[in-house]
């Protein structure tokens, strides 16, 4: 926890509180009927294992924060309505659609984007390249993230399980048949690497 030297002053009685939430609770308890101060928008995120603090507007989606403000442009926006999964990120271990999440509601969360997955040298990346699991490439990061989330929870997925996990990801170039092949190849590599490590 960072040391916060700010204090939050109640606009109605001047009492000082240590945190924004404390102030809100106080106002609610002691000043029923008065308006609550708006949320401050200060959030902390762990993005690809690095801690960040931001000041966000309520109307910023998580996608907008990460793609436009932080400049991690790997995640893409195809529909911006939760219908295509191109903006998929892994938040607190679950693959979710960042365009339909508000940044201001992500305080304290852990986020993995495609950049993080590539940076850690995940075997999926090479498997995707070797198997041509992309054409124009716009939806590819969404697939990579969704596949990685699958492999995190299931190291030996069947073709059916892969298809199910990717069933929300749209691809207009229709590279679909290549993805289960790439994911299986990555899974096999991970299994072999694990064996090798154990063997040593």
């Amino acid at each position: 926890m960072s040391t916060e030297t700010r204090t939050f002053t109640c606009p109605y009685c001047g009492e000082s509180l240590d945190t924004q939430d404390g102030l809100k609770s106080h106002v609610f308890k002691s000043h029923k009927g008065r308006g609550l101060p708006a949320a401050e928008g200060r959030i902390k995120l762990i993005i690809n294992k690095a801690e960040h603090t931001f000041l966000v507007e309520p109307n910023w989606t998580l996608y907008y924060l990460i793609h436009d403000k932080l400049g991690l442009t790997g995640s893409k926006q195809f529909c911006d309505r939760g219908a295509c999964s191109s903006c998929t990120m892994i938040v607190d271990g679950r693959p979710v659609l960042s365009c339909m999440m508000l940044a201001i509601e992500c305080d304290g969360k852990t986020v993995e984007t495609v950049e993080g997955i590539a940076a850690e040298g995940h075997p999926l990346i090479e498997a995707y390249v070797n198997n041509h699991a992309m054409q124009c490439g716009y939806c590819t990061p969404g697939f990579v993230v969704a596949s990685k989330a699958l492999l995190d929870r299931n190291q030996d997925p069947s073709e059916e399980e892969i298809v199910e996990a990717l069933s929300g990801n749209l691809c207009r170039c229709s590279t679909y048949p290549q993805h289960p092949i790439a994911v299986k190849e990555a899974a096999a590599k991970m299994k072999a690497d694990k064996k090798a490590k154990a063997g040593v």
Partner: protein
Amino acid sequence: MKNFKHFNAYSVDEAVALMGRYGERAAVIAGGTDILGKMKDSILPAYPEALINIKTIPGMSYIKEEGGMLKIGPLTLLADIAANPVIKSKYAALAQAAGRTASPHLRNMGTIAGNICQDIRCWYYRNQNNRFSCLRKKGGRCYAIKGDNRYHSIFGGSVSGGCFAVHPSDTAPALVALDAKIVTSSRTIETEKFFEVKPVKTTVLKADEIVTAIQIPEPPAGSASAFLKFALRRSIDFPIVNCAAMVTLKDGKVSAARICLNAVHVIPYRALQAEQAVMGKKIDEALAEEAGQAAVSAAKPLEHNKYMVAVARTLVKRCILACEGK
């Protein structure tokens, strides 16, 4: 999206108080997958001044069996409901419905209460910038009647005859079939009575009322439930027709049946005639067929949705047979 105020509620009381203060000027945000779409497209005449986040209320996400009931917290994610072994075995219709809702990543965000409280998907209602200020937005009329109504109600309009938009939830009919109750911050309601059709409302919830639990009684011995969904695509799509059923057999004959269609009417449609058709009888293909026929006997299709009648009839039949293990 335009900007708005944002509040995190930390208790049900706090949420209710905020909702009371803002009334129609604020909206509740749970998973966010419905409300954010509405705001991005500015479909309503008035844009929310504030969003009240209820995900910060602790203790709202759980699945437990207690006191002869299955209790599910309102913020329980659809993915967790679909994967839960108890629900899969004893309350199969709900697990299947949750598992077929939307897409995998949306199921990691969408909540059960959000799914039954969601707004209609009518493409006139949802057209951007309030292009069609229809009956459900306190405007004049329903644009689907003379327009393209291929996904609209086959059982006529709302009580006042005006709106033909269907209810889009997959889990709602499953909850009706399982005889679930909806617990709110002020009362407990049978699922069937939870839905109503009013301008900018799809439920009976008051402006300062939220769902606090779902309770499903343990099905009696000899019961089985099932859920089927019909859509053009095998993922992502809202239902064009879906059906949930719970059938109880005693001595090989139907002693109880609850059959609910959805996406065919303005609220989930309890197929009472189909239930009557199977009561006391042994289930076979012919009986299920008859029940399907009975289920759509009151159908009044519009110009473009006659096919939905055939689909609804078929789903009722197959859902009954699925309960029987066929």
